[in-house]
């Protein structure tokens, strides 16, 4: 049995821009309910990036730690990063906003209690709703070069959605227009290392993040140089960098799902 949530907690510890290190996603003390929910067989470790978010657990869904503070219209802030990340990104707001846009009648019915959100199914909704969903669904017909970075352990925006998106681009025969990198072990955090220096007064000064992916993109767009290794922040040590290989470097440019498994299996073997 692998305690995934504890494990990723250690992995996702980052140093934020203000220089304070902390775990961004994982509460220090896990309840037994939480532990039970996240406890999975070791064989499922490579499936971890695809697990549902934390509010699938009825206990955590009711837990105050998983909510935006009462009366606040803003993020709960970095003091409670786990709350804010969960509540705002993997929580219901994006989905409700989506529903408000594509099917406002159903959204209103959810609010007045006459229907359940879980029963919403675009296939059973009127044509105009399906059209609205369709308009918001990317076609993959991209008109510019895309360099995409995603963490294999992103709990906010699952890698599975990235795979689906890249597959659409591949299906449009535009695989040569996208280069994408899965960073092993990385969660929902900025992917590049922030550089600092210690000045003559002993004060730590930020020089900003490394522009490694921007350099890759510029050389690709202007000189036609196929992007090489992506140098990203090391999820296990935010003071260091790691090298991530793009799908095209591994010969998997047209097989996004296979690329995902390749990177994930490499993590499992490394662990």
């Amino acid at each position, binding site marked *: 049995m692998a305690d995934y949530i504890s494990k990723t907690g250690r992995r996702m510890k980052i140093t934020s821009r203000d220089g304070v290190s902390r775990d961004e996603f994982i509460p220090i003390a896990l309840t037994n309910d939480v532990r039970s929910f996240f406890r999975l067989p070791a064989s499922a470790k490579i499936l971890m990036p695809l697990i549902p978010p934390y509010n699938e657990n009825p206990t955590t869904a009711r837990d105050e730690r998983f909510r935006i503070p009462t009366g606040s*219209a803003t993020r709960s802030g970095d003091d409670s990063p786990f709350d804010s990340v969960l509540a705002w990104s993997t929580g219901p707001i*994006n989905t409700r906003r989506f529903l408000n846009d594509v099917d406002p009648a159903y959204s209103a019915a959810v*609010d007045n209690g006459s229907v359940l959100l879980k029963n919403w199914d675009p296939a059973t909704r009127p044509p105009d709703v399906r059209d609205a969903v369709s308009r918001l669904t990317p076609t993959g017909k991209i008109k510019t070069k895309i360099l995409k970075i995603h963490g294999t352990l992103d709990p906010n925006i699952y890698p599975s959605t990235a795979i689906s998106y890249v597959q659409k681009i591949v299906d449009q025969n535009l695989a040569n227009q996208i280069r994408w990198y899965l960073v092993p072990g990385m969660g929902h955090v900025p*992917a590049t290392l922030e550089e600092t220096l*210690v000045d003559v007064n002993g004060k730590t000064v930020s020089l900003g993040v490394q522009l490694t992916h921007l350099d890759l993109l510029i050389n690709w767009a202007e000189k036609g140089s196929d992007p090489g290794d992506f140098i990203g922040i090391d999820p296990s040590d935010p003071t260091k960098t790691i090298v991530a290989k793009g799908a095209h470097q591994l010969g998997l440019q047209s097989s996004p799902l296979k690329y995902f498994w390749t990177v994930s299996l490499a993590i499992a073997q490394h662990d």
Partner: protein
Amino acid sequence: MHIQDYRVAVFVPPGGPRGSDTLIRLVVFLSFFLIATAFDPLPSAAQTDPRSPTDRSDPLKSLVDKLNDPQRGAALRAQWNIDRAVWNEPVTAVRNGATVLVTPAHADIHTSIDSVGALWSPDGPLISAPHNPTSARVFIPRGYQNQTAPKRMVSFAPGGGYTEYTFEPRYAIRSPVLRRGYVLCVINAWSTVATPIPLGQWGTRLNEVVVFAQKMLSSGFALPAPTFDYAWGESRGARMLAYSSELSGTPFHGVIEERGGGDLVDSALQQIRLLNRSASRQSGRRTGNGRLHQQNWSPHENYLA
């Protein structure tokens, strides 16, 4: 002000030029050169040391001064919906006895393509979100106009909840991008809660404001237009870029989609499916009717304020 606004009278003796016509031509040439140098803001000599304080005559600094002048800057502000212009001196740090450039001197200009937000305030900006949904903060490094080609602009779309005013220190991109000499255009990552912008307008709005900023640089400020335009989106910003990238006429030569992009519908449907799985779990343990989750997704339960 352009050179054609001035006339130079050159008196030539009757009978045409004689032996001194070379001298006259030289005088004429020098006159034009001096006028052009004095009144055209662009060819000003670049300051060689980016760590040094800005010369008073720096054309970019003069532009910011003009924008902050109630009379002289009124037309330019109105034309480009500029509600804030600030000049920033270089930031340096001393390490091991050497002075290191952290952030170059730069102009910080806020603009909006929605006139509702472009109300001039001498005391500072009107924070854009949510009433001013499509806006950008354009950072122009000192000496940008003197660089050898190519010139680049990077448009940054921050993650959810962040605006062009709150993207720092979360996204520490201003210093490194400006040190490269690129223009940085930070757009507002529209809130999913308060924004009046439909999701379907994310891409077009983003493209529009970037094109607007490009035109402001070239047509408004007489600066060179960027040769290459890039975009960099984080999370929700990457989602916007996914839409933007599928539009004909996208202004970008390339985009970075970091930890997001093209997933909005998939992610929403995933949440719906989770509710069903969650409800089925509950049915064996708790209420069995799924109402718990309907309540938890309600704004009345403080998920939305």
